[in-house]
């Protein structure tokens, strides 16, 4: 058994050395296919992250007609915090609001001298739980607010955020379709490249069958070869992605387009990197398997 495994590996590596050009063609094809799919994946992941970052800021601000008294406040707090959609409640008293306004005016703060400290209305800022950060969640919170307190005015997440969410949903859908299409295309190309390498070796396959090699014995070295090529293809695509991500995209995007604090671009997690390499191995095996069926027959 061990002898056989060693033989299969020797044969697979020998084959790859014997046809370096075909072998590198297969590896490169797989690397390009995998890198394309992975790039797509990275775009989706980062856009989703962006969406998550932006929606984190969705909050409902309720301006109150009358500032609640110190005795009413804890009761109101408790009520608002009990809303199932709400994550955090913050109370801004009129003086807090004035202080904030002042700090925003900075040098011009003197303009506010002599102005009544209670001029600005008191307000509650309601942060929503992640799954309610959408139009529906906002609508429900507004309805609850109307039934709970005397609200003078409401401010909440802008309309465009809703549209952005729709866009992300669509992107996810398109990426699923395009991604599976890409994977099939990759499989097709890889299988054809491998078919080419098998075609170049059809004599060998014929002679093996002639001298009494079993189907398994003929196929395993080729499957192993496909797996090894897939492995290399996966590693090459990973290396390519890592280098282009760190050297080009991350550096240029963060310095030119977005402020670094605004967005930290995500790369694949170690688990996802492993998945990419495993996907390469699977691609290689599957590609060999589909083409072997055409060439090895008794």
């Amino acid at each position: 058994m061990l002898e056989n495994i060693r033989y299969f590996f020797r044969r697979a590596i020998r084959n790859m050395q014997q046809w370096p050009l075909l072998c590198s063609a297969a590896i490169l094809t797989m690397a390009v296919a995998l890198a394309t799919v992975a790039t797509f994946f990275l775009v989706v992941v980062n856009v989703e992250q962006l969406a998550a970052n932006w929606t984190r800021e969705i909050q409902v601000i309720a301006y109150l007609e009358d500032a609640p008294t110190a005795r009413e406040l804890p009761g109101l707090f408790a009520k608002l915090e009990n809303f199932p959609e709400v994550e955090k409640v913050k109370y801004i008293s009129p003086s807090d609001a004035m202080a904030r306004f002042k700090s925003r005016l900075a040098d011009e703060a003197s303009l506010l001298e002599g102005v009544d400290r209670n001029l600005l209305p008191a307000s509650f800022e309601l942060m929503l739980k992640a799954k309610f950060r959408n139009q529906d969640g906002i609508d429900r919170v507004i309805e609850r607010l109307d039934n709970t307190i005397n609200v003078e005015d409401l401010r909440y997440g802008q309309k465009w955020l809703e549209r952005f969410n729709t866009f992300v949903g669509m992107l996810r859908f398109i990426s699923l379709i395009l991604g599976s299409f890409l994977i099939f295309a990759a499989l097709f190309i890889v299988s054809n490249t491998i078919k080419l390498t098998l075609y170049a070796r059809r004599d060998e396959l014929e002679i093996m069958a002639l001298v009494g090699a079993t189907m398994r014995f003929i196929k395993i070295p080729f499957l192993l070869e496909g797996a090894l090529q897939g492995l290399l293809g996966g590693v090459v695509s990973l290396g390519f992605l890592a280098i282009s991500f760190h050297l080009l995209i991350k550096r240029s995007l963060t310095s030119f387009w977005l402020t670094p604090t605004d967005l930290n671009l995500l790369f694949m997690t170690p688990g996802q990197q492993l998945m990419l390499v495993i996907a390469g191995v699977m691609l290689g095996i599957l590609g060999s398997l589909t083409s072997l069926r055409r060439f090895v027959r008794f």
Partner: protein
Amino acid sequence: MIQLFNVTKSYGGESAAVKDLTIQIPKGDFVYVTGASGAGKTTFLRMLYAAEKPTKGQILVNNQNITRIRSSQIPYLRRKIGVVFQDFKLLQSRTVYENVAFALEAQGKKRYEVSKKVYQALKEVGLEHRLQRKPLELSGGEQQRIAIARALVVDPLILLADEPSGNLDMEVTLDIMELFKKANARGTTVLLATHDHSLHQRFPRRVITLEKGKLITDQQSHHS
């Protein structure tokens, strides 16, 4: 050893490649299969190692009915049969040693066993000094001897040769005939398809003659 009963093989055309053949070949026999090209010699041999299935009739090889053989069993049948072709069918990218070792490796033989047997087989055909050469660096006669070494290295019960001397001159052909005779003397049944009549005049043995797929003569020779 080899028995054919009313074997017919047609490829769907009007005339069959092999028609109603009934032949018995006992173990250790040496048989020439002759006839003009297109007479059905190659089809006859191909059916014996299950590269073709007969359309009608039954074939028994070593008491196994190979007309009903499952494809997973074909490799095990072929391990008992060595085949030699007119075009040698060697792997040009492999060395002489690797070409012969291939047959043993395909049967899953151990590495030390392989090297010993390959050396012996190459010595048998007089090419043990060419181990590391590639086939194309050798003459046609030498290439055919490698092919014969590959066929014989597995100690086959049957050796099938399809026009083995078709591309070779007479002197080389005589060398190769010696190899077949030696294998036959060790007990291997030899079937040699050829259209070269001089061979069986020089080395008289049983001759089966085919014409348009039919058996027309089956002459036993009286060699000693």
